[in-house]
C-alpha cells in the first residue's frame, strides 16, 4: 500500500502509468469501480425498463401484437403477441433487475464506492482488491440473471419474491433452468454485496481523515454506512434462502416442500427478513444524498443534523422488526400480525422526521434550482406520497383488502422510482463533474426532469385508483375479470404514460453520453459545496490526495456568518479552528 518512509504520501503517487487493463477494467481505484458500477447498472436499468414497457403493452392492449415484438422468438411472443408464460417472466425479471441490478448497485455500488473515500478524505477503500472483486462478482451475477432469457423454458417465473413452492417446483412453474439461474445469480450478488459492505464499513470506521469525527460526516456517508451494515447482515440471509431453494430444485431437498414436512411460509419469512432491510437499502442512500444536495441547493446547514442521523439509525434498527407486514394475509399467526403492524407504523416516525427536516432545511434558504436540487426536491415530494401510502397497507384490516393489488404496485413505485430514482438523477448529475470532469447539460437536465415528473405521476398515480378497485397484481390479462373490464381505459392511459416516461429517459441517457465527450468542462467546485471531494481536481486523480486533508468542521456550513461567501469548506482553517488530535498509531 505505502512505504513506511513516507506515510503521508498518496499510496499510488509516483507509480508508473498503468496498463489499460489495470486502469479501466481490473482497476482497484474506488472511483473507477464506482464508474464501472454506474455503466453496468445503467445498462440493467435500461433492461428493466424495456421489460416494463412490454408489461405495460400487454396490460394496456392485451392480446394485440406488440410493435417490434416480432423479433421475439415463438416461445415468448409469437407474432408479437405476448404469451402468458412470457408475461410472468417479464414481471419476475423486471422486479429482479430493478431491485437487485439497477437501484441497489446504483445507490450502493456506485455511490458508496465513489463517495465514501472522497468524502472522508481517504486515499481509497480499506481493501481495494476486494472492492474490485465485489464489482466483478456483481457483474457476473447480472450476466447469470440475464442468461435466464436464453435457456430452454426461459427466465424465472415465480415473481421477484420467488415464493415457494411455485419457485421450487419446475413442474408447477414451468421454468427449470431459469429458476436455478435466479438462485445462483442472487447467491453471487449476495457475495458481492457482502464484500462491498465489509469494505465500506471498515473504511468508514478506520480511514477517516484527521478531524472527520463521526458527527462531521456528511449524511450521505452516514446513510451509506448504515446501509452497508444492513447489507452485510441481510444479504447472507437471502443467500442462505436462495441456496435452500436451489437445493430444493436440484438435489431433492424438501425445505419448502409441504408434502415432505417442509414449510412454504419458511421461504417468505427468510425472504422478507432479508427483504425489508433490503427496502431500506434501496432508500437510505437516496435519503442521505438528497440531504447533501438539499443543503447545498438551499445554501443552508441541514436542519437537525443529529436527528437526521438518529432517524437513519432508527429506520435501520426498526427495519429488522417489520418483515411480517408483507405476510399479514399469508396464514401467519394473526397475533404476529398485530405486532408487525405496530412496528411498521412506528417506522413512519423516523421517515416523517426526515421529511420535516428537509423542509426545515429549505425554510428561509436561498434556493438554487440546479438540476440536482430539482430532482432532490421531487424526491421529497414523491417520497412523501410513497411513505403515506405505506400507512394504508400497514393497517392490517385494510391490508387484507389492498394486499397484492395495484395499490401496492403504486406504493413501491412511488418509493423506488419517485424516491430512489429521482435521488439518483440528482446524485448522478451532482457528482458527474467529479467523476468525468464535465458537467451534464443543464437545459436537457431540466427538460428531462419536468417531463419525467409529469409522466411519472401520470403512470403511477392512477395505479392507486386501479388498486382501490381491487385489481390484482401480475395478471396477464385483467380483462378476464368482469369487474376489471371497465378499468381498461385507465390501463391504456397508464401504459401510454409509461411509454412516454420511458422515452423521456432516453433524454437522460443521451445527455449522459453526450456530456461525457462534449459537456462543459467542470471546475473544481462547480456547486460551491463544502465536501472534501470538491477540494480535488475534476475528475479526481488516482489515490485522491497528495496529502491527507485535515477537517475542521461539518459538511453543511452554508451561509455561515464567519465568512463572506455562502459556503465554508470543511478543510478551510479559520483562525478559531484547532488542529484535530491524531489517532495513536497501532503497534507503537
Amino acid at each position, binding site marked *: *500500500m*505505502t*512505504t*513506511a518512509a513516507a*506515510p*503521508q504520501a498518496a*499510496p499510488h503517487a509516483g507509480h508508473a502509468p498503468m496498463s489499460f487493463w489495470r486502469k479501466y477494467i481490473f482497476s*482497484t481505484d474506488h472511483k473507477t469501480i464506482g464508474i464501472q458500477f454506474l455503466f453496468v447498472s445503467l445498462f440493467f436499468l435500461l433492461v428493466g425498463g424495456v421489460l416494463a414497457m412490454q408489461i405495460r403493452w400487454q396490460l394496456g392492449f392485451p392480446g394485440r401484437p406488440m410493435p417490434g415484438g416480432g423479433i421475439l422468438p415463438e416461445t415468448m411472443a409469437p407474432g408479437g403477441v405476448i404469451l402468458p408464460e412470457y408475461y410472468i417472466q417479464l414481471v419476475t425479471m423486471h422486479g429482479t433487475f430493478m431491485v437487485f441490478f439497477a437501484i441497489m448497485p446504483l445507490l450502493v455500488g456506485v455511490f458508496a464506492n465513489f463517495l465514501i473515500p472522497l468524502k472522508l478524505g*481517504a*486515499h481509497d477503500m*480499506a*481493501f481495494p*482488491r*476486494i472492492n474490485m472483486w465485489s464489482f466483478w462478482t456483481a457483474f457476473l451475477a447480472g450476466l447469470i440473471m440475464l442468461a435466464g432469457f436464453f435457456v430452454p423454458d426461459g427466465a424465472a417465473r415465480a415473481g421477484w419474491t420467488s415464493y415457494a413452492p411455485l419457485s421450487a417446483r419446475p413442474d408447477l412453474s414451468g421454468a427449470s433452468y431459469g429458476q436455478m439461474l435466479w438462485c445462483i445469480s442472487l447467491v453471487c450478488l449476495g457475495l458481492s454485496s*457482502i464484500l462491498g*459492505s*465489509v469494505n465500506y464499513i*471498515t473504511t468508514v*470506521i*478506520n*480511514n*477517516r*481523515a*484527521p478531524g*472527520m*469525527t463521526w458527527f462531521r460526516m456528511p449524511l450521505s456517508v452516514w446513510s451509506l454506512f448504515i446501509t452497508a451494515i444492513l447489507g*452485510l*447482515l*441481510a*444479504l*447472507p*440471509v437471502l*443467500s*442462505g*434462502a436462495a*441456496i435452500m431453494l436451489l*437445493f*430444493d430444485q436440484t*438435489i*431433492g*431437498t*424438501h*425445505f419448502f*416442500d409441504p408434502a*415432505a*414436512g*417442509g*414449510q412454504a411460509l*419458511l421461504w417468505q*419469512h*427468510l425472504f422478507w427478513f432479508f427483504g425489508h432491510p433490503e427496502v431500506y437499502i434501496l432508500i437510505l442512500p437516496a435519503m442521505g444524498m438528497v440531504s447533501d444536495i438539499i443543503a447545498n441547493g438551499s445554501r443552508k446547514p441541514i436542519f437537525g443534523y443529529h436527528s437526521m442521523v438518529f432517524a437513519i439509525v432508527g429506520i435501520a434498527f426498526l427495519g429488522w422488526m417489520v418483515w411480517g407486514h408483507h405476510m399479514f394475509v399469508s396464514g401467519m399467526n394473526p397475533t404476529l400480525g398485530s405486532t408487525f403492524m405496530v412496528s411498521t407504523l412506528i417506522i413512519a416516525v423516523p421517515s416523517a422526521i426526515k421529511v420535516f427536516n428537509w423542509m426545515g432545511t429549505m425554510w428561509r434558504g436561498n434556493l438554487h434550482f440546479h438540476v440536482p436540487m430539482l430532482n432532490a426536491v421531487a424526491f421529497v415530494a414523491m417520497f412523501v406520497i410513497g411513505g403515506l401510502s405505506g400507512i394504508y397497507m400497514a393497517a392490517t384490516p385494510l391490508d387484507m383488502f389492498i394486499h397484492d393489488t395495484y395499490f401496492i404496485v403504486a406504493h413501491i413505485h412511488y418509493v423506488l422510482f419517485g424516491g430512489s430514482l429521482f435521488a439518483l438523477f440528482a446524485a448522478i448529475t451532482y457528482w458527474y463533474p467529479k467523476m468525468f470532469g464535465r458537467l451534464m447539460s443543464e437545459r436537457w437536465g431540466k427538460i428531462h426532469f419536468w417531463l419525467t415528473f409529469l409522466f411519472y405521476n401520470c403512470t403511477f398515480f392512477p395505479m392507486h385508483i386501479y388498486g382501490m378497485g381491487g385489481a390484482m397484481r401480475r395478471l396477464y390479462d385483467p380483462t378476464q375479470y368482469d369487474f376489471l373490464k371497465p378499468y381498461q381505459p385507465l390501463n391504456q392511459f397508464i401504459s401510454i404514460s409509461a411509454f412516454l416516461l420511458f422515452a423521456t429517459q432516453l433524454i437522460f441517457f443521451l445527455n449522459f453520453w453526450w456530456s461525457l465527450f462534449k459537456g462543459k468542462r467542470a471546475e473544481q467546485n462547480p456547486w460551491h459545496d463544502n465536501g472534501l471531494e470538491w477540494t480535488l481536481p475534476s475528475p479526481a486523480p488516482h489515490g485522491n490526495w497528495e496529502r*491527507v486533508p485535515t*477537517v475542521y468542521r461539518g459538511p453543511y456550513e452554508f451561509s455561515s456568518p464567519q465568512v463572506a461567501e455562502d459556503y465554508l469548506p470543511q478543510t478551510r482553517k479559520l483562525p478559531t479552528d484547532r488542529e484535530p488530535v*491524531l*489517532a*495513536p*498509531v*497501532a*503497534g*507503537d
Partner: protein
Amino acid sequence: MTHAVAASAMRPPFPAERGVDVYDKKLGMWVFLGSEVMFFTALIGSYVILRFGAPGPWALPGKVLNIPVTAFNTFLLICSSVSMVKAYAAIANGDQKWLKIWFGLTILCGAGFVGVQAYEYTHLIRHGFLPSGYRAGSELAELAAANPVMYGQAVAGLYGSTFFTMTGFHGFHVTCGVISMLYLYVTKVLPGKYSKADHAGVEVVGLYWHFVDLVWIILFTIVYLV
C-alpha cells in the same frame, strides 16, 4: 499493487481520525464474520423451525449418524484451534520455527476434518442417507420401515435436507479456511515473511478459523447430539 512494508501493515498508512484502534484487516474480518453469523443463522434457524414444525418425530441421535467418528472429528477441529492459538503466540514472540510447526499442524487438522467428513458423507450415502431422505430400497430405508419412529421415517426428507445443507456449508467453510491457510503457509510462513511486528495474516485467518470451529461446536450439538 506493491505489498506493504512489514512494519506499516498493522497501522493506518496515513494519519487518520481515531477509529476503533483495530487495524483494517482485522476489523474487516470481524465485519465479515458478522455476515457469516447471519448466514449460519439462516440455515440453523430454518433447521429449528422445520424441526419444531415437523409432522413427525426426528430420528433418534446416533441411529443414522455415526457419533463417535464425528466426535473424533470435533476433537480434531478443536485441536486445530488450539494449534492456531499456539501459532499466533509463537509469531507474536518472533518464533519462526514454532510458527511453522503449529501453523502446519492447524492445516493438517483442518484437512483431516474435511477428510473425515468426506468419509462420513460417502458412508452415509452408501447406506442410503441422501439430501432427499432415505433412498428407497437402501439399508436405511428398510431399517426405517421397521422402526418408523426411531428413524424418523415421516420426516426423513427434512432430516436429510437440513443435515447435508448445514454440515455441507460448514465443510465448505473449513475447506476455504484450509486453502487460505495453505496459501499463506507457502507464500508467507515458509519464506519467513511474518515477524514479531507484522503477523496480521496469521491473526486474521486465525479469527476465521476460530469462528468456523465455534460454528461446528454448535452444529455438532444440535445436529448430532439432540
